């Protein structure tokens, strides 16, 4: 039982770390701000979620587990809103040196 939980931890945390790596690669390799944002929000939400999932079996107190989940929920909430806001600035024609193509202009607001 204990071993199974440890394996779950190792698998989930490793997967989470790989998602962080993927997000970083996306941030570095993708061509413009909005695609980078796309890569980033997916990667960090999922990466953090998997890390939290992996850590859950390792904490004994239920309150500590609640704390871990709260961190993830908070990151999800703020990540989603901030992604939305950043997309708004990336598509707005301001000083971002016109490197964002116009075809993205409508993609950020709903």
């Amino acid at each position, binding site marked *: 039982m204990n071993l199974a939980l440890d394996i779950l931890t190792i698998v989930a945390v490793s997967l989470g770390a790989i998602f962080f790596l993927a997000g970083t690669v996306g941030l570095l390799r993708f061509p413009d701000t909005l695609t980078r944002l796309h890569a980033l929000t997916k990667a960090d939400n999922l990466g953090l979620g998997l890390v939290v999932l992996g850590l859950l079996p390792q904490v004994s107190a239920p309150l500590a587990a609640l704390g871990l989940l709260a*961190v993830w929920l908070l990151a999800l909430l703020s990540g989603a809103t*901030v992604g939305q806001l950043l997309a708004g600035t990336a598509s707005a024609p301001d000083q971002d040196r016109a490197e964002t193509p116009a075809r993205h202009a409508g993609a950020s607001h709903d």
Partner: protein
Amino acid sequence: MTEFLLGAAAFVLGTVALGLIRLLRGPGHADRMLAAQLLGTGGVAALLLLGVATGVGAIVEVALLLALLAAFASVAFVSGIHRPDGLGTASGTEHAAPGSSDENKRDTP
């Protein structure tokens, strides 16, 4: 297990640090902020890993604070970027000076 969790923390920190290359290259401010945002989430993950690895529960609260306020910094960034016209938006205070287009004047042309 402790060793594995510490290693994972180092790995996550290392990868998001790699993302800081985006901070160097830009080109826009939004790209730089993306790098900082990734560092924020990665930092939260690393803190959680460290907290569980060392068994110090309070570290999770640091992560909670970091998650809460990293979002706040991004909000600050976004609202700052929306006023590229410098001091003009929020000043309008010195109506003694000639040519200072006060906010009042702007509102009632």
